[in-house]
């Protein structure tokens, strides 16, 4: 039995029963990484000795009868999330040598119970992309077809789980960055409600949209991770105080009569025929299981991308101002202060990051703020209201995650707008702050995974996980 292919539930059970140790699990994952990472490029940093050290400590915790379901399990973390003592580049050269002196809160929670941090995964630099081709450390290839992209921005995280290089991953979703690569790689990816999990230590992109969540092999695994990482954090003033349920237990709750909305706008967009078919099959399956299916409408769906690509670059341009080569990271050779900034940022950022900083700076500049940023935030209100209204009629929504399965490497790389439009199904939920999950729905005839998205009301992760679990079975 290849231990690296286990899910969280299976690995935790095995550890508890003493069938194998955390060191065994970690060695199996490291072996897989050695075999596959050169081709797939999912990891920027791999920790061999350090991970085995952590695994030994985890085994001690387990032997003492302590720990919880995540103790001793090797997991990967997106490189745009800070990990104490472990190089975190954000996939950009400006942080090529950066070693954070602190853990992100959600990472701290996992490492404190003995999670084994096996490595940092490749991503589009600072979350900027939908294909993982905007990394300054090379693109990530899709484990199902090495000529295709893994998706983005958390391509490395999704690939690391899909290829069993680790048991699960922690990644970040601003406008689809967990869900879309999860769809392309055939794994589960959950974007929680904005404010559900702490953003402290997540390299910030858009402060009003960023979320951190799990990428896992099963829906149950995602629920188990959420139980540990969710919750209010005094270090993140945007986290909500609302209590959250035992997500894994709630998966077993009765689903008969659950109302599932099918928003027509998501099926009018010119989606790939196979994607449509796979999604429709899942809708039928849910109907047969006792759910009530209802056609609904979210009229402002088509404006979400435009609103998103004004709001995000604006907040992003402000957040990335901290990367200036002054206090940490890579500093360019320069004699004047202006040159220090301008050269460090020129050399340290890939093109797409520079583009979004420019768009954001423009949108926020005097004379344009009202026409762009304010207007986008007003449209955001309307998008959110669409969701709030619809969730009075139905419990959750079901849509495809992406208009198409994984596309070829280089196919869209030169077409900025085409890559933005890749997020057309994942950005509305992000703009409105709703939780959403991508769960594998089936494969295309050529064997490419297709993800199905479930969107829920704010703080409705339990419902979202429950419905996704039905699809996952």
């Amino acid at each position: 039995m290849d231990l690296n292919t286990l899910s969280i539930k299976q690995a935790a059970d095995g550890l508890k029963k003493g069938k194998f140790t955390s060191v065994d699990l970690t060695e199996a994952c490291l072996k897989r990484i050695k075999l596959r990472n050169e081709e797939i490029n999912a990891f920027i940093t791999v920790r061999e000795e350090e991970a085995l050290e952590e695994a030994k400590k985890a085994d001690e915790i387990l032997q003492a009868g302590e720990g919880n379901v995540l103790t001793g399990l090797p997991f990967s973390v997106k490189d745009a999330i800070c990990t104490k003592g472990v190089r975190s580049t954000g996939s950009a050269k400006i942080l090529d040598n950066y070693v954070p002196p602190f853990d992100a809160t959600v990472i701290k929670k996992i490492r404190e119970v003995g999670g084994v941090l096996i490595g940092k995964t490749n991503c589009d630099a600072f979350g900027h992309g939908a294909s993982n081709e905007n990394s300054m450390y090379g693109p990530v290839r899709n484990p199902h077809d090495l000529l295709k992209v893994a998706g983005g921005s958390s391509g490395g995280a999704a690939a690391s789980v899909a290829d069993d290089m680790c048991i699960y991953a922690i990644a970040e979703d601003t406008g689809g960055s967990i869900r879309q690569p999860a769809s392309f790689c055939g794994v589960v990816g959950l974007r929680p409600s904005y404010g559900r999990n702490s953003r402290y230590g997540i390299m910030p992109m858009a402060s009003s949209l960023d979320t951190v969540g799990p990428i896992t092999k099963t829906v149950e695994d995602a629920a188990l991770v959420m139980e540990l990482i969710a919750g209010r954090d005094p270090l993140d003033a945007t986290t909500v105080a609302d209590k959250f349920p035992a997500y894994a237990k709630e998966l077993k709750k009765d689903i008969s009569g659950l109302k599932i909305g099918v928003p027509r706008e998501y099926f009018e967009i010119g989606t790939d025929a196979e994607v449509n078919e796979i999604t429709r099959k899942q809708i039928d399956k849910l109907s047969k299981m006792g759910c009530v299916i209802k056609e609904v409408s979210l009229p402002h769906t088509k404006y979400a991308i435009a609103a998103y690509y004004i709001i995000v670059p604006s907040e992003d341009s402000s957040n990335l101002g901290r990367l200036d080569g002054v206090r940490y990271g890579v500093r360019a050779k320069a004699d004047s202060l202006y040159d220090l900034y301008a050269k460090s940022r020129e050399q340290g950022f890939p093109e797409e990051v520079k583009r979004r900083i420019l768009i954001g700076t423009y949108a926020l500049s005097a004379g344009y703020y009202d026409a762009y940023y304010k207007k986008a935030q007003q449209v955001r209100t309307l998008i959110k209201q669409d969701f709030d209204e619809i969730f009075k009629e139905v419990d959750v929504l079901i849509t495809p995650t992406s208009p198409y399965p994984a596309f070829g490497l280089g196919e869209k790389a030169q077409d900025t707008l085409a890559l933005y439009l890749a997020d057309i199904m994942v950005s509305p939920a992000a703009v409105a702050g709703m939780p959403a999950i991508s769960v594998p729905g089936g494969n295309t005839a050529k064997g490419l995974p297709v993800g199905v998205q479930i969107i829920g009301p704010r703080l409705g992760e339990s419902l979202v996980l429950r419905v996704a679990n039905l699809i996952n079975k």
Partner: protein
Amino acid sequence: MIKNCPATAGSRSRREKFKIVNFLFMSISVEEVKKIARLARIELTPEEEKRHAETISAVLDYMKILNEVGTTGVEPTFQVTGLQDVTRIDEAKDSQIVEELIAQMPKVKERELEVPGVFE
């Protein structure tokens, strides 16, 4: 709130529509890119300036779709949690990571961060 505001662009006055449309139809020139790059402190190559002018113009052109949406009287949503004024007591705490911070500094002299003069 949404039920009280005119929901379609067609109900706006012709002059108002022209003013907004005029704004968002602008494509961006290389000169504008140079100006913004200066504000953003990024030293672009001439080739990059040209490429960004093209790609950003295409993106901004797409944005005119927002002209279709009537937003008169709609409050902007800056963040969705509804939280306001989340405070904590203003007290200093020892971070205990001074050595790690100094280790990250690109240029250090006697445990102080060295930078080119600000007022050169």
